[in-house]
């Protein structure tokens, strides 16, 4: 098996190599930008937890849970950085199996709003395995495509990648979670594009997807999903119903003005005009309370983060690193675009989290794993010179 080529010889090697990793290649900027974004996420969790007569540190508030998940994410990030990423390549197939199994488990025992099955309760916490699935699929695809380097512009490579992605994507769609399946598809497209796959085939595929939209409208989309798209196209048609979120979030964003109303002063969120303000619509609160300047800072941090991820991907001598970086960058970019686009009313409402800032443990931990892998690749590039 081709995968075996990259396998470390003995288990003991892992520790020695990680200890011996080239820490000067560690991308401190990348970590800094991520940490700053995470800090903004904590600030938003704080402002969303402020409620009259209640301590934000009381158990169970959004803020305390965010603190806990952030701590866990930091631990995970450090652990994954130290861990030799080659093991991920080795274990790609088991990882794929575990991924599919977790998604099947979610469908079987998961909970969600209105009969959906999106998250699984583990003790006092809930976890959305579809978030993890994004990172795991990046590992699997990076391994698969990396092993096919040199033959990437062939159709079988593209089809193989699509076939690999199909089961998890369908499982997520069945939850039903259209947003996450959209992100999964984007990750696939981004990685194929960055891998150097034939543009001709990619365009042909894109055309095929476009052609399938009418079919999807008829057979795949649920009524509430159609409502969201229709109310995005014309929010005023049902201003009190499904257009409510679209209108209210734009009011929130617009009323922030250049400098914002100040933290915890957002009337739109205080009055609970914004549904799911701590999750999918957190950016609306951010834009109202921190204003245009605050939002711009967030954009700059995201742009800087993407730049660092792409730089790491570029530097990687291992195609796995390049491809994984491409997948991670695609994921961050598409999620920022779709989430913020939804909040400011240029895209329909989908349940896609804003990386780092949307409160949600699975999203944060998955990002920590992804960034950890990027750093792990970074510090293991120059091993040969060492």
């Amino acid at each position, binding site marked *: 098996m081709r995968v075996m080529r990259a396998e470390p010889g003995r288990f003991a090697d892992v520790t020695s190599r990680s200890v011996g990793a080239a820490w000067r290649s560690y991308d401190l900027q990348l970590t800094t930008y991520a940490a700053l974004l995470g800090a903004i996420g904590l600030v938003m969790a704080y402002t969303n937890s402020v409620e009259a007569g209640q301590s934000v540190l009381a158990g169970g508030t959004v803020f305390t849970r965010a603190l806990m998940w952030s701590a866990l994410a930091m631990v995970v990030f450090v652990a994954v950085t130290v861990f030799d990423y080659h093991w991920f390549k080795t274990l790609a197939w088991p990882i794929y199996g575990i991924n599919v199994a977790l998604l099947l488990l979610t469908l079987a025992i998961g909970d969600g709003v209105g009969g959906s099955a999106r998250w699984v309760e583990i003790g006092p916490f809930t976890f959305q395995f579809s978030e993890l699935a994004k990172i795991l699929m990046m590992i699997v695809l990076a391994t698969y495509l990396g092993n096919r380097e040199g033959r990437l512009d062939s159709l079988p490579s593209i089809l193989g990648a699509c076939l690999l992605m199909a089961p998890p994507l369908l499982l997520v769609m069945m939850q039903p979670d259209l947003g996450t399946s959209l992100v999964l598809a984007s990750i696939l497209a981004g990685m194929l594009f960055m891998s150097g796959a034939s543009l001709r085939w990619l365009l042909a595929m894109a055309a095929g997807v476009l052609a399938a939209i009418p079919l999807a409208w008829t057979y795949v989309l649920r009524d509430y999903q159609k409502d969201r798209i229709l109310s995005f196209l014309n929010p005023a048609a049902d201003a009190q119903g499904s257009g409510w979120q679209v209108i209210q979030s734009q009011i929130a964003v*617009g009323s922030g003005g*250049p400098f914002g109303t100040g933290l915890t002063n957002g009337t739109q969120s205080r*009055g609970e005009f914004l549904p799911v303000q701590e999750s999918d619509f957190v950016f609306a609160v951010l834009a*109202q309370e921190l204003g245009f300047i605050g939002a711009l800072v967030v954009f700059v941090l995201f742009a800087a983060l993407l730049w660092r991820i792409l730089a790491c991907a570029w530097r990687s001598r291992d195609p796995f690193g390049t491809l994984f970086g491409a997948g991670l960058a695609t994921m961050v970019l598409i999620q920022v675009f779709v989430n913020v686009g939804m909040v400011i009313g240029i895209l329909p409402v989908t349940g896609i989290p804003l990386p780092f800032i949307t409160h949600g443990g699975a999203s944060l931990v998955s990002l920590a794993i992804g960034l950890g892998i990027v750093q792990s690749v970074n510090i293991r590039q120059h091993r*040969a010179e060492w």
Partner: protein
Amino acid sequence: MNDAYLVPRPERDRRPIRFVAFGLAAILVFGLLTSRLAYLQLSNGPEYAAQAEANRTADVAVPAPRGLIYDRAGRPLVTNIATFAVRITPADLPFSRREDVSRRLGGLLGMEASDIITTLDGAPGSRFDPVRIAQDVPEDVARVVAESSNELPGVKVAVETRREYPDGPLLAHILGYTGPIDGATLGRLADRGYLADDMIGKAGVEATFESALRGTYGLELVERDATGRDVQVLQTTQDSVPGASLTLTIDRTVQKEATAALKWGMKAAGLKRGVFIVMNPQTGEVLALVSLPSYDNNLFAKGISNKDFQALLANKNKPLTNHAVQAHYPPGSTYKLVAGTGALQDRKITAETKIRTKPYLLLGSTRFYDWNRRGFGACNLNCGFGHSSDTYFFQLAGMLGADRLAYWGKIYGFGKPTGIDLPGEAAGIVPSNQWKINALGQPMFAGEVYQSGIGQGYDVVTPIQLVNAFAALANGGKLYRPQLVREIVGPDGTVVQSFKPDLIRKLPVSARTLRSMRLAARSTVVLRHTYNLVDMPVKVAGKSGTAEFGKRDSKGRLPFHSWFVGFVPKNPYKADFAKANSELVFLAFAYDSRTKGNAATEIAKAFLQNHFHIKKDYLNRDLLRRGNFYQSN
């Protein structure tokens, strides 16, 4: 193989162009997001800030206490009492839970779940306006509902005031009731501050004097969250002004006397509908206005159940209709007032002109019979009116002709609503040639003119029109608008509007003519056409009437109504009818009486006995026996 990864890898064939493309895509995305954000926050920021403010605050109406209603002696006829109401805000009740919540709530309130759903679906406001489901909920039930908010999403308990009518059916047709505003009315009145769950006067003076009674709602600026919960009152924008109070012309005591008399007569004769009206002819003030059957207006004030409402609608005696005002009937011989006045004033006859009354008049081959198949011989006005001779009045009608007869009918106020302060007044019909051409395409036949002269043609009148016409006779020719309200008193005690007689017209009739007609009306009593009415200590003039209607029975007989309209002089014990100083005119109407005698006259006597506290009993119970006897007119 094992050490393959240790060998430095050759530079990989990367695709810089794809990285650049990705970078460009990222720049495009952030550029797009930033420009949209700038548009929302920088260009339109102030506008959205205003919207956010509007989101947060709301102008909330503060209902004003509704004005009270008193009778002419200052007795309260209605009170406002605080009750618990249960409301549902449709937006807060998930559609999937409607059935379940309606069933649960219905169980608590003792209502049908389907009624709750119907009320919700029929509510006029938006999904965010609370819909009143039940009023007058007992306190313990209200407590349970309020505490079950988890099982009953969107259901709230509110304290509101409702009307309580202590006398219920006694005054229901006068006072009317308040009820929830309907969608069409709300659409019309929303800009005057009516709310989707508002109460509005729906019948009686509650409806006609709605704007005075309602007062002016106040306005508070309230901070709200998205669920519509009021967080705090920011300021009172406008104080509410309580509604004005009404003092009615109605005398509750007289109303009771009239009701008791009518109930007695209807029970004795087995009648289903009746009307009794008492007025002061000098002013047009209505002292009593009774229409039976009545209904309990408290049912409506408490929020009538669909079942009770359907039962009232289905009752074929129409308890919700004010038969004194909202229905019209053939007047029968009481209408001879019109032909008599007209013939005198048009100088066709004088009071002393003798006209030969016959058993019947022949018109072509049709015989027009007198009620008395022998006739009364040569008759002057007192004889003709007093005995109610049909052939006498056939001839007067013939002298006048259709249009002149119609003219005098209209002069007395027939054919047009009187303008009494009650909604839904009927107009009645006064047939003229033009009327018949419009209605039936040809002019009046001579026989129809005859019939019209005795109130048995196409003519129909409302009881209030008829009593008002006799009031004009009794007061010397002034046709007043019947009024129900003496005073409107503002919340601070100042009189907003005080009573003024409202003259419709001065009749173009000489005092002499009216005097002759009053004396003729007295002769009705004196000639014992009304049996022992003349024996009563109270002196009465008036006219009885028997009006056939409907379909003939197997023996060719028609069912008939009985009327009696009368008045007493200022000094009721002195029979001075030459003067026009009467302060009491009254009307009794017995629908579908079919009694041996004139049931209305007996009812009128019963009222006089009640009203003047006459100890001796003059009532002829024998005349109230049913049997479709075709008795005197």
